[in-house]
């Protein structure tokens, strides 16, 4: 145990102990190695995505239906989108869903992961059970929840009646449908956060926790000062990932409400799909998709700005 910290202090390379390379090599830094390592990923990810990104951008500035030649109209789609009340409500619905879903899934995921990170009998079974919803396909989930939350015949209303609560509209009620989707989204998506956090918790060194305990930290203290900071990269990842997933919600809406009732659950990507494949306004749909993209870009630039002025990332 002690050798670990000893090593850390005496073996950290000093700046001039570091490779004395010629100036060119220093400028390149590790570029040749670095690029070599990322090359396959770059070719596949960027190579296969550049064309779609550009294609979509071009499409967003055209009047296109995908089956006839397109007509260039510049920013007209964007101008119409700014006035479109349906798009505005789609944006609102998406933001509401994301605002509720992301914090809850991260907090819930972390809480569950901590609970599942212990040696108790059957712990493997519990972990697997929490993971079940993530494994079931969206279509099967749609059937399941439509049946459970049926306003007239569903199990949910039956259970509520035992507690003396009157029947709810659930998916048929414009005020409840979106919140219900948040709940179902959490049920099916939290397993992802749990698994990632569980993996992250494995890397926290036991010694640090014990050191904190020796210093007098209780369970909450060791969480706040050891576990939470150690999990920071994971939390960053999950926050970004879950936000992206929430902003691009589609499957769940498609198999349960189809954007209803009365468009109460129409989210941005559903709006995009409907415009492109039901109404044949592919250019308009692409513009809506790019509004989402620009919004994310602005958000991420803002976060980056905030981070640069905050404390340094542990690198």
């Amino acid at each position: 145990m002690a050798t670990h910290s000893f090593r850390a202090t005496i073996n950290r390379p000093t700046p001039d102990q570091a490779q004395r390379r010629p100036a060119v090599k220093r400028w390149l830094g590790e570029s040749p190695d670095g690029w070599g390592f990322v090359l396959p990923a770059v070719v596949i990810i960027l190579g296969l995505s550049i064309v779609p990104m550009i294609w979509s951008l071009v499409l967003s500035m055209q009047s296109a239906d995908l089956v006839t030649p397109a007509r260039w109209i510049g920013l007209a789609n964007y101008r119409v989108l700014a006035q479109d009340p349906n798009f505005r409500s789609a944006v609102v619905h998406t933001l509401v869903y994301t605002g509720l879903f992301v914090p809850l899934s991260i907090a819930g995921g972390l809480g569950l992961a901590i609970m599942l990170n212990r040696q108790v009998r059957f712990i493997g079974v519990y972990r697997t059970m929490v993971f079940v919803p993530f494994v079931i396909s969206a279509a099967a989930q749609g059937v399941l929840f439509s049946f459970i939350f049926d306003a007239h015949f569903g199990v949910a209303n039956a259970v509520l009646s035992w507690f003396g609560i009157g029947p709810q509209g659930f998916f048929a009620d414009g005020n409840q449908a979106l919140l219900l989707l948040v709940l179902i989204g959490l049920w099916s998506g939290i397993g992802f956060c749990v698994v990632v956090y569980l993996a992250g918790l494995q890397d926290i060194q036991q010694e640090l926790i014990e050191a904190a305990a020796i210093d007098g930290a209780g369970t909450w203290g060791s969480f706040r000062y050891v576990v939470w900071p150690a999990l920071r990269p994971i939390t960053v990842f999950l926050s970004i990932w879950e936000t992206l997933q929430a902003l691009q919600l589609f499957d769940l809406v498609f198999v349960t409400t189809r954007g209803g009732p009365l468009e109460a659950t129409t989210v941005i990507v559903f709006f995009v799909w409907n415009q492109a494949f039901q109404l044949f306004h592919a250019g308009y749909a692409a513009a809506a998709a790019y509004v989402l993209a620009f919004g994310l870009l602005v958000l991420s630039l803002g976060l980056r700005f905030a981070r640069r002025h905050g404390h340094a990332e542990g690198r």
Partner: protein
Amino acid sequence: MTMQLPGRRPQRRFLPFSAWHLILAPISLLFALPLLWLVVSSLMTNAQINRFPPTIIPDSLHLDGYRYVLRNALFPRWFMNSVIVAGVVVLGNLVFGSLAGYAFARMRFRGSNLVLALMLATLVIPFQITMIPTFLLMKDMGLIDSLGALIVPSLVTPFAVFLLRQFFLSLPREIEEAAWIDGCSRLRTLWVIVMPLARPALGTVAVLTFLATWNDLAWPLIAINNDHNYTLQLGLTTFQGQHRTQWAAVMAGNMITVLPVLLAFLAAQRTFIQSLTSSGVKG
């Protein structure tokens, strides 16, 4: 976290089992309940399933659904297709994702920030739009209606690169720097030193990538035409007619799709979600 803090006496037990069971069991049940419903439904006949309000506990069990599914001559083929696609995609993501993730985490090279940002930027356009140009690209590569169309676009994903980068970032640098000073190349350091430590991360990437590929329906629907090239999910949709659905078969099909994955997860999670007695750094 339960840890044996030095100097603490084991607590007196009031129950014959750990109190955690009282919390974990109901929560886990809440998550797993639909699986029970899936299991029960797969063992009913269509007539039983169509009863309304639905029967929770059927009076008799039948294997009609399973028979219908397994009698389908192409079902084993669909299963193999799904296995191949998912297997290759997982392998690709583990290998190439680790390489790229490590480079982003530990190596400083010109353009690394830009490239990483670009990779993440590819995630902001929803699939419904990008699927058409991706389809065009696959068509030009001659891959449409083959497993290649399902494998190539997902061979490396920003998810794998990003997640592995974050994991590598959270590993303490000391061991790698020791190896570096001792003359190990970056590649060797990654392969010999870091990868064994990253088992939880690799396991996570493997499981989540496998599931995403296994459950994917939207892309195979567009990219595959011939029923010999269907994946399992695509094949399951054929049990749903335009107006009538073979519900027992759909449930049985889902069970056959889901159960092996869950059992594999149950077995594997013990290796990549280790107990707390092992620490991250072997001292």
